[in-house]
């Protein structure tokens, strides 16, 4: 037992070293800009860059629209599958897993070929439509995570009783979904939303191939042309990911425990 604990510590420390050294190195590197002294110059330059602000805001807005689209597509479906069409569950689950099977670059390649300017649905013909296509693409990337989060949330509430109670009180479908179901799975939806945000904010492939001025392509461009700023950007990106994951953890404490399932 004693030697077991010793080896557990060794493994843990080695693993922690592998995961922490790159972070320490990146922080150190990002502060090396001024010769001979550590400084936050790289961060100042990055944060003051108008390109940074513009692309970051673009990606934040894209992420917000992605979350809205994801909620609109996923919540009614997951609810309806639980309530009335459980026989469709395997098919819907299979489809929501497809974005993990089909690489993002293949999906966006398909978009470019199918929705080009000469196609019946010319998404690529103007900027607004291309922005919409990017948001749609992001929503497909986030689909597995969003669906899983919402479905887990629905499992912890008694969908059927809530629905029937609302119907007895005279509520229509839109009222049931927006005022009964959604508030009950809000925490799950928010978890999915933050995960979506973390995925979308630095996404490179789709934004770059659709020629959108997003944060991911900006990062890549800075990486190809500067020395110290990329390290500062990596730390900022890590902080954003950390923030999203922490919010999910905090939210999960408020989530209802499984109430209606004895098993």
């Amino acid at each position, binding site marked *: 037992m004693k030697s077991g604990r010793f080896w557990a510590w060794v493994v843990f420390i080695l*693993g922690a070293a592998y*995961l922490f050294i790159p972070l320490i190195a990146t922080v150190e590197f990002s502060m090396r800009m001024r010769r001979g002294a550590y400084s936050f110059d790289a961060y100042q330059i990055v944060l003051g860059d108008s390109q940074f602000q513009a692309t970051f805001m673009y990606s934040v807005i894209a992420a917000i629209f992605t979350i809205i689209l994801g909620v609109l597509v996923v919540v009614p479906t997951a609810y309806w599958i639980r309530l009335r069409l459980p026989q469709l569950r395997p098919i819907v689950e299979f489809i929501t897993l497809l974005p993990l099977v089909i690489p993002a*670059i293949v999906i966006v390649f398909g978009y470019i070929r199918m929705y080009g300017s000469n196609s019946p649905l010319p998404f690529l013909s103007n900027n607004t439509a291309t922005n919409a296509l990017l948001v749609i693409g992001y929503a497909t990337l986030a689909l597995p995570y969003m669906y899983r989060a919402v479905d887990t949330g629905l499992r912890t509430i008694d969908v059927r009783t809530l629905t029937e109670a609302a119907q007895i009180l005279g509520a229509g479908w839109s009222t049931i979904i927006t005022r009964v179901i959604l508030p009950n799975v809000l925490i799950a939806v928010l978890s999915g939303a933050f995960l979506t945000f973390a995925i979308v904010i630095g996404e490179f492939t789709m934004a770059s191939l659709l020629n959108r001025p997003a944060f991911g392509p900006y990062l890549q461009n800075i990486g190809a042309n500067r020395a110290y700023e990329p390290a500062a950007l990596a730390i900022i990106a890590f902080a954003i990911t950390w923030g999203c994951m922490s919010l999910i953890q905090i939210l999960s404490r408020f989530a209802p425990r499984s109430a209606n399932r004895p098993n």
Partner: protein
Amino acid sequence: MTLKDGSRRMTDLSLSDQAIAGKTAPPSEARALRLPTQWLGVAPFFIFAIMFLILPTLYLMLGAFQNDAGEFTFENIAALAQPSIVAAYWISIKVSLASALIGAFAGLAIAIAIVRGGLPEWIRSATLTFSGVASNFAGVPLAFAFLATLGRLGLATVLLNTLFGLNIYAHGFNILSFWGLTLTYVYFQIPLMVVIIVPAIDGLKKEWGEAAATLGATTAQYWRMVVIPVIWPSFLGTVILLFANAFGAIATAYALTGSSLNIVPILLYAQIRGDVLHNAHLGYAIAFGMIVITGLANIFYIWFRTRSERWLK
């Protein structure tokens, strides 16, 4: 458990159908109305999935078997056999497999250490939290982090040189190479493995250890005959998931190496940007090949997962 659950759901469903039918209309009328409304609820999802996930993919897959005139052909698939494309697939498979295996074994060791190693409780929760973050820390910023660590002027490179006199670049290491990319991918593979495999290790029941001990098994026998067979399917399944995860990734590799390391996603990226292969349908064929590889990987993953779920209920 599954059976009980399913039958309960079915009885619930029939009950509520009756309730709704009784409430809204006489049975015959309700039956006529019910069919379309049932399906309307999931229509937006299916329309979305078909338009933006399934059709675009099918379009490429069909395009892989057509020539410019739209006639059926195997030429594009056959053209994948040219050396530069085969090399790209091969290096992609090698990087994905190496990073998946290293990440899987390291992640498994860490998971066992934090679950079964008798470490303080806070280490387990801190590791899981950090793994959640690190497994999502990929893409371009990860490449920057590794350039700052193992690049020519990176901290680890410099420290190894000054402290131990070990110049890794003189020994042939390069961050812009197979091993550089593999080590970078390992950074998100290890935490991903930890996040997925910890529940499987939690699923090992205490009673099994006690039963084994009662029957006189040594620790080694307990591991060899109980633990490893139970964890094995989820472990293999996760290795495959990690493989697919690395195989489709492009942002990290592109930011790290530009186009100096010719993996498949980067080749496809260049083809989409500027038709570097001078044949649009060859691009479709490359995409088709990627789907075949990740698709096969996922079929194996599902197969292993259904096998592992038998034990982990």
